[in-house]
Every structure is written in structure tokens, then in C-alpha cells.
């Protein structure tokens, strides 16, 4: 590998003496070696041996980019030297991977807590960027004098699934190709193949990635804990029959409600930093809080609504909130629950799909079954999200039908309280008010940020 030339005055500033390359890998002129130019210094931080402990911000390493193999079977064992080398050898034969290491392969791998980015060493054109959560494994393989670092990553979006997977395309860039119904097709992955200078460099890279994984995994675990608390806390504790004639089950809405301030502060009471409800400062619930007909809904229902909207504010951008409001309007105006679920899932993405749980109390009974099934399909029904958990079943239906599931096999008695009855008017009014509130929320966030 070529040595770095003179350091730039500041790391990150590209030397004016740039080597001219055509953009993209295919455009690179491999036959005409260009005059070497000055290269900027890499952004590195001191590492403490032996385990290279570092508080990663962005860390750059010089590597050689050999290529990316796609449509690799997902069951590939990244620990198996034989399996991985076999794939690489086949790729070499097909000229997908160069046989020789040359200066033209010089690249820089940049590690942060968010992604791994690969750019060409000269010109800094981006080769690819892989989010951390798309990386399944990183392997170091020594093949004679070659020190390879191989990333097993999610299949890139747009790549066609295996022919055995079926005709349905997939929108998910995850390791598994899924149809809309959630059926698991053949798993495919990609292999990103890099070469480094020596064993020490390879081990350092692996160790850094290990730390990044730890950071991401730690954050995901805490998120999981927060979701569990949110889910357990937000389940209604009162009977919420709006049409019940049994006065004993009606909530006295005149009861002074002792709010858990950190969960109920309405928009405007939270700081703009997008902090989670658990870390927001304690503020009294706004007396101006517009709830959905507080006279009609129970206090707990209003609390749930506030809670959910507070969460939305911290998790979604203003544009996304407006999109959410639009989807809610469409649902209210007659679009199907299926469409509503699919669109919401797309809006929230993988990292925020747990937000769908918070909608549970607001889904009318006639659609609740589909909604519950959908949650199970996308793996959030039992609180599962990014990390699988050990919850087991979420809830069993109360009463004599001990074998019934939380889906509510009994008519009118599912395992979850519902705020909205199957009747139309009250539901329409509530959804209309929710939509208006959410639109206003999105607009107010735009004003705050301007």
C-alpha cells in the first residue's frame, strides 16, 4: 500500500493537487497510471492497546477495496475461512474481484457509530455506505500474504432476490427478503471485501468495529427497555367503554388526574432536542391541551393520546408528523386498515416500528384483528423491535377462555382495551381531532425550527 504523502494543514481538507479520476468504480481508468498526488491525512484517534479502546467519533483507515459480492446466500458462515475464500476465489475467476493489489484500489474506510463509509483514497468519491445495523459480521482472513477483512452485510435495496424467492419484490434492505405479507424468502446478503496492510491493521479494524457494534447494541438495548416500560405503562388501567350503561365502569372524568409529568407534557413543554419522554423535564400538563372531547373520553384515554403525541414529537420530524396526519386522514376517510398499516410501517421504518404499538388503543375493534396480525408480522407485537426479546405472549384474553390469544378470539373482549368503539361518530370525531392535533403539532415544530 502506498504511504501517505505530506499531511494537509487540517485533517479533512483535500489537497488542491487532486488526482483526476472518472467517477465511480467502473469509470476508473485502470490502464493508465496517473501521477501520484498529495493525499490528505486520515482522521484518526489514538488507540489504547491492547484492545484498542477508543471513544469512536469518526475513525479512518486506509484499505484496498477489492469489491462487493451480492446475492450471497444468507446462511454463509462468516467464521468459515473456506466458505468465504471459495466465494472470493470464484469472484476472482469471474473478474468481479481484481487479482492483483494495485494503487488504484486504495480507499479509505471511515467508521462512525452510524455507518461504515468507503471512499476512494484519491478524489474521495464515495464507493458505498453501509449502516451499522446492516452489518451482520466482520471477518479477518489471512490468505498467504493477503490480509482480508470481509463484511457480511444486508443485501442492497434494489438487488433482485434469489429466483427461488418468488416474483414479489422486496422493499426491505434487511438480511431477509420479505414479501408484504411477511413470508420469509431466501435470505441474501452481500460481502464487502477489503484488503489491509497487515495482521495488526486487520485486528485494529475488527476491534474498532466491535466497539461500534457495542455502542449500537447498547443503545438498542436501552431503547428496548424504554419501549417495554412505555408499553407496560401505557396500557389502559380502566375500563374504557364509551357506550357502557354500567355507571360503575365509567371513569369519573372530574377526578383530578395526577399526571406523570414527564410522560404527559404536551408539545411546547418539551425541549426541542428530541429527548425521550423519560428524560424530559417535569412540566405540568398544559391546561390548553386539546384532547379529544375530554368530556366524552375517559381521563386515561386523554392521557394515552397525549402520551402518544408526545412520543411522536420526539421520534418524528415535522414532515413525518404531517405525513402521519395525512395517513390518519386517509384512514378516517375510508382507506383500508391494511393500507394504513403498510404506509405507517414505511413511514416509521425499521428503527421506529415500535411506534405502531402506541396506536393500539386507537384502532377500532373492527380493524383490531388485522392490526394485531400486522404487528406480529413485523415483529413488534410482543415488544420485539430491533432486538428479539423474551416476552413470550403479550397477553392472554381475560375470563374463562384461557386458551384464547391476545388477538382476541372472543368478540368484544380482546386482550387490550380499545378507546374507540366500533360505532362511527365518536370514532370519526376522535380521529378527526387527533389528525388536527397532529397537523398542528407538525406545523408548530416547523415554526420552532425556523
Amino acid at each position, binding site marked *: 500500500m502506498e504511504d501517505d504523502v505530506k499531511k494537509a494543514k487540517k485533517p479533512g481538507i483535500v489537497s488542491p493537487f487532486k488526482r483526476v479520476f472518472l467517477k465511480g468504480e467502473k469509470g476508473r481508468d485502470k490502464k493508465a497510471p496517473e501521477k501520484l498526488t498529495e493525499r490528505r491525512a486520515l482522521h484518526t484517534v489514538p488507540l489504547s492497546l491492547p484492545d484498542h479502546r477508543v471513544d469512536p467519533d469518526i475513525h479512518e483507515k486506509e484499505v484496498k477495496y477489492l469489491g462487493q459480492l451480492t446475492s450471497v446466500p444468507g446462511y454463509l458462515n462468516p467464521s468459515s475461512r473456506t466458505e468465504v475464500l471459495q466465494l472470493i476465489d470464484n469472484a476472482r475467476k469471474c473478474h468481479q474481484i481484481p487479482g492483483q493489489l494495485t494503487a488504484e484500489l486504495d480507499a479509505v474506510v471511515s467508521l462512525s457509530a452510524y455507518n461504515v463509509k468507503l471512499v476512494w483514497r484519491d478524489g474521495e468519491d464515495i464507493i458505498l455506505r453501509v449502516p451499522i445495523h446492516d452489518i451482520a459480521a466482520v471477518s479477518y482472513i489471512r490468505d498467504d500474504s493477503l490480509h482480508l477483512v470481509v463484511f457480511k452485510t444486508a443485501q442492497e435495496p434494489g438487488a433482485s432476490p434469489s429466483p427461488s424467492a418468488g416474483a414479489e419484490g422486496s422493499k426491505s434492505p434487511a438480511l431477509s427478503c420479505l414479501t408484504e405479507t411477511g413470508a420469509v424468502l431466501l435470505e441474501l446478503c452481500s460481502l464487502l471485501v477489503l484488503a489491509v496492510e497487515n495482521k495488526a491493521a486487520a485486528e485494529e479494524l475488527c476491534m474498532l468495529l466491535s466497539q461500534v457494534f457495542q455502542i449500537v447494541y447498547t443503545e438498542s438495548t*436501552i431503547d428496548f427497555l424504554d419501549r417495554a*416500560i412505555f408499553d*407496560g405503562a401505557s396500557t389502559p388501567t380502566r375500563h374504557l367503554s364509551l357506550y357502557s350503561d354500567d355507571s360503575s365502569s365509567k371513569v369519573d372524568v372530574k377526578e383530578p388526574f395526577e399526571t*406523570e409529568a*414527564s410522560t404527559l407534557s404536551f408539545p411546547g413543554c418539551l425541549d426541542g432536542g428530541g429527548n425521550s419522554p423519560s428524560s424530559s423535564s417535569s412540566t405540568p400538563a398544559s391546561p390548553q391541551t386539546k384532547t379529544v372531547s375530554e368530556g366524552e373520553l375517559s381521563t386515561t384515554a386523554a392521557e394515552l393520546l397525549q402520551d402518544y403525541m408526545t412520543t411522536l414529537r420526539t421520534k418524528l420530524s415535522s414532515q413525518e408528523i404531517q405525513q402521519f396526519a395525512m395517513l390518519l386522514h386517509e384512514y378516517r376517510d375510508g382507506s383500508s386498515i391494511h393500507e394504513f398499516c403498510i404506509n405507517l410501517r414505511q413511514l416509521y421504518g425499521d428503527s421506529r416500528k415500535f411506534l405502531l404499538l402506541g396506536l393500539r388503543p386507537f384502532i377500532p375493534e373492527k380493524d383490531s384483528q388485522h392490526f394485531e396480525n400486522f404487528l406480529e408480522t413485523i415483529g413488534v407485537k410482543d415488544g420485539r423491535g430491533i432486538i428479539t426479546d423474551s416476552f413470550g405472549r403479550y397477553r392472554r384474553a381475560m375470563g374463562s377462555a384461557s386458551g384464547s390469544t391476545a388477538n382476541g378470539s372472543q368478540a368484544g373482549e380482546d386482550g387490550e382495551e380499545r378507546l374507540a368503539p366500533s360505532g362511527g361518530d365518536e370514532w370519526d370525531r376522535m380521529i378527526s381531532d387527533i389528525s388536527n392535533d397532529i397537523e398542528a403539532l407538525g406545523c408548530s415544530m416547523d415554526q420552532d425550527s425556523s
Partner: protein
Amino acid sequence: MTMEEMKNEAETTSMVSMTLYAVMYPVFNELERVNLSAAQTLRAAFIKAEKENPGLTQDIIMKILEKKNVEVNFTESLLRMAADDVEEYMIDRPEQEFQDLNEKARALKQILSKIPDEINDRVRFLQTIKDIASAIKELLDTVNNVFKKYQYQNRRALEHQKKEFVKYSKSFSDTLKTYFKDGKAINVFISANRLIHQTNLILQTFKTVA
């Protein structure tokens, strides 16, 4: 909030009285085998003294340890001991929901008490946190089940206790976030002890109201 109310709140949420039931109660149980009368007298005396002077038991224990030159991390030791069932808090109703409540509370306390053993191994500690998350949720679900099935006149007290538990659960989560930045395990132990105390208070409240 009046002074009296503040004192009551401090008393009920304070963790200092944990020493009485986490450390002394097992001692009294052992002593009962030797001298039943003396053990019962001592127990009653400690309960009364602690009630009037919250934290007294802890002070006594600390002094004894100091006198004997025993160097222990008291908070960590308390956490390790806090998993045991406190008979006074166990709900003795036979219905399945209340037995579930006992069981889920016990499960959560046991996982929390394992924190000192797991905290130094990141991978194992993260798994422990996931298990704690599951246990918290299961306990809350069980509480909600009891709410749904039974109508109580003093429901507000139960709901208040549930809210307190949720508040301390969130505080525990915040403490973990801070721990992963500053590495100070003692704060995690303190927060875990508080959460165990809240778990016991839930049982106590249900036992009183139900």
C-alpha cells in the same frame, strides 16, 4: 404539599428502610429458630424504631460493620440481598392474578439483584438489561390484569403506586444511559435498589387494598 405529606412521601419512597427488611428480617427469621420470643421482640422493636426514625436500621448495620472492620460495599451488598421474598409483602390471596403478581415481582427482583455479577461483562450485562425489560413489562401487565379484573374503592392508591413504579423504571433506564458514559456502577446499584423497593411497595399496596 405540606410538610407532613412530604414526610410521608419521603418515607414511603425512601430506600433506607430497605435495610430493615432486606438485611434484618432474614436475621430475625434465623433467630426465631433459636429463641422465638426474643426474635419476635427484636423484630417488633426494630420495626417501630425504623418507622419513627427511617434509616436507623441502616445506621446500626453500618456501625456494626465499621466496628468489625468489615469492608463491604453496602449498596452492592444490599442489592444482592434484596431479591429474597419479604413475607410481609407477599399477597396471600389464592387467585391466579395475585399469585402472578407475587411471581412477577419476585422474578424482577431476582434479575435486578444479579446486576453486580453481570455489570462488568458488557455482553452479559446487556442481556440482563433485556431480561429486566421483559420482567418490568410482565409485572406491569400483571398489574393491569388485576386492575381490569377487580374493582377497588381505593383504586387511586394502586394507580399511584403503579405510576411511581413506572417513574422509577424510567429513572433506572436513565441511570443506565449515564452509566454507559461514565462507568459508575454504584449509581446503577442505587437505582436498582430503588426499583426493588418500588416493586415491594406495589405488592404492599395490593396487599393492603385488595
